[in-house]
């Protein structure tokens, strides 16, 4: 399953788009996170309105095997509500910052969702039968007088319309002073970590009233603060290992076996700065917005403002691969700083076999890089090309010189349309791309 694009393998084609077509986008409808579960059967999105929407993959029909099944809404629920912190006189937004699925253990599904302060464990379960024939209660639910019950009736299960219930099982609150930017379920499936700007906590999924602080970079004197934690993730196989990235473009790998408090890292990944490209914006653009381990656990990928880097865990001094996402923006950094885009936090993801990576850009463009062939492609999530099974045309941004036909100039890029969140199906070539309030699903078209 190589194949980012073009070439002999396959092409990406449109499958579905979710969300309103309306030009007026309600702030609450903006998608803030996208995540497939471990099997890829479910796809969850969170939005700025605190809602979680779960889509389920419908089984493909046997009559038409060339048609893959679609993702349809499975469950929608309000995960977080806006709150007010009276002590600090501050609003706590309901925006869902991250969703992480737990590996499935039984018929029900579990996921963690978090806003800036509070993490919640949700259970999503199905019910398609109900028990009927109790004679202990009246029809309105009141217990009947035991003396009036003369016979024993065994209730029977009657089929009913499928109902999907989402219920909050655990609420992990009051452990973060700063904004939570990451949650990550550990490979032991019992613990997870949550990271805010200055601290990382380790939780047990069953215990809500305590967590262990495993990283604390808050200086005694806040004046000395020059660096914040931007993302953190557990290793996919070694439950004692986790990494966190910083606003200075570095990544620290910590081993929880070394000490209870992992303020001292085991490994420190940093690429020396290229003095020839130094500018006032060097630090801002080197700030890492996302870090993801490969499925194999051998590599990790980091996203900074202009590039994606793949690091071998065994080599700390430089990444093994660097991919430019939108290098043409380097000459526009001043404007991007002016309009605050330079602070946008783009995420990145691996495909199921770790052979390709995907990340977002502006103008509803997203990029894919094939690690084997070193080919890359720019695609666009747009309504225009969203006809069923329509092949996605590669897009090109002209970089200086003459603009060729079908190319778009840097100046006409729409910086309000940004793709920050994408997800790749864990097994298949199916991707989910969040473009403001719309969720696009694309899949491969085997020729």
């Amino acid at each position, binding site marked *: 399953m190589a194949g980012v694009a073009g070439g002999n393998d396959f092409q990406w084609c449109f499958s579905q788009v979710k969300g309103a077509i309306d030009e007026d986008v309600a702030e609450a409808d903006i998608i803030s996170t996208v995540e497939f579960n471990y099997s890829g059967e479910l796809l969850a999105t969170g939005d700025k309105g605190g809602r979680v929407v779960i889509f389920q993959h419908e089984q493909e029909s046997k009559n038409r095997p060339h048609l893959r099944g679609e993702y349809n809404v499975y469950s929608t629920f309000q995960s977080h509500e806006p709150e007010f912190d009276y002590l600090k006189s501050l609003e*706590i937004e309901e925006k869902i910052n991250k969703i992480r699925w737990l590996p499935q253990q039984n018929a029900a599904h579990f996921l963690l969702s978090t806003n800036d302060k509070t993490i919640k464990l949700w259970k999503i379960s199905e019910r398609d039968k109900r028990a009927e024939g109790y004679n202990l209660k009246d029809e309105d639910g009141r217990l009947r007088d035991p003396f009036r019950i003369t016979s024993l009736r065994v209730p029977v299960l009657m089929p009913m319309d499928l109902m999907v219930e989402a219920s909050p099982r655990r609420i992990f609150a009051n452990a973060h002073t700063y904004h939570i930017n990451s949650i990550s379920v550990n490979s032991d499936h019992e613990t997870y970590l949550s990271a805010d700007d200055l601290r990382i906590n380790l939780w047990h999924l069953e215990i809500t009233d305590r967590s262990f602080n495993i990283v604390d970079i808050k200086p005694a004197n806040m004046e000395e603060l020059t660096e914040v934690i931007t993302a953190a993730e557990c290793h996919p196989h070694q439950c004692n290992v986790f990494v966190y990235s910083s606003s200075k473009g570095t990544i620290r790998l910590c081993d929880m076996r070394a000490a209870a408090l992992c303020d001292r890292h085991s490994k420190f990944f940093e690429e020396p700065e290229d003095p020839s490209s*130094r500018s*006032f914006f060097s*630090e801002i653009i080197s700030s890492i917005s996302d870090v993801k381990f490969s499925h194999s656990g051998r590599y990790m990928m980091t996203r900074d403002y202009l590039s994606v880097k793949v690091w071998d865990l065994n080599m700390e001094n430089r990444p093994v691969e660097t991919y430019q996402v939108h290098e043409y923006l*380097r000459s526009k950094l001043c404007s991007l700083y002016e309009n605050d885009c330079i602070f946008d936090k783009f995420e990145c993801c691996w495909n199921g076999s770790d052979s390709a990576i995907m990340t977002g850009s502006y103008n509803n463009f997203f990029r894919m890089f094939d690690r084997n062939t070193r080919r890359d492609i720019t695609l666009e999530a747009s309504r225009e090309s969203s006809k069923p099974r329509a092949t996605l045309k590669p897009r090109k941004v002209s970089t200086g010189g003459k603009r060729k036909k079908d190319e778009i100039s840097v100046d006409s890029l729409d910086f309000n349309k940004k793709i920050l969140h994408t997800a790749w199906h864990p097994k298949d070539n199916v991707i989910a791309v969040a473009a403001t309030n719309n969720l696009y699903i694309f899949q491969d078209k085997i020729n």
Partner: protein
Amino acid sequence: MLGRGVKRKWSCLEELEAEGVPAALVEAKQPNGEEDEGGLLAGVPPCHASHLQQRQKVLGLCLEKLQRYQAGVELSLRRSVLLINTLRQIHEDMRSDGAGTCTPAVLLSGVDPDSRLLRDDFREDTSLTCPGCAEGGGDGLSVSPPLSPEFPPQEENTPLDQKSSPTISAFSDAVNPMGYLSDLALDDIFEDIDTSMYETSDLSSASGSSLLWPVSVSLWADEDVKIRPLNHGSPGSLQSCLMDLNELDHIMEILVKS
């Protein structure tokens, strides 16, 4: 690197003409310190001027962004840290520049309306010192952290750096924004910014000293201005919106009693 200066300047010029945006992105590619030499070689090369212009622009935007926040909403710490580190970098850049190779005209032309606003505040509070120059003169001290709030007040007769001396009079008249930055701005802005509300654990120590991060915002801005004695050097616009928790207590006391 500087041997190739001429070429670089041309490219800068071209970019300037091409898009009218300061082309300091290119200029900024040279490491700090080498610019002075470039300045000496060719007076004030256009490319250097554009670097200064952009620096000024970035500085103005930086300050503006640090001021501009939504009342009642917690700011992103990441953004604030990045902005303040950028301020620090500009500050370093200015120090290494020695303030000697630029003209006030260049600086003022690039000034954002908002940073000009701040500059006006500065004008009210200062005499004709040239803090930027004076500080540049204290090269021996420049190793110490530039943002220390305990900076001694700058004296007008502080020994001057050789580089800056030719332009000193121009600077002191123009109340240049650089001077504002290197002397007052960083210290005082940070002094007025308050993190104490962030600290649930350690309130007393946090509110005691001057604080750096604009991480919390008071909803009591108006009361603050009225009640609070303006004991800081610059009653800047930042100050009117920010205050620390101790003062909130104080205000509460007054309100409750009245």
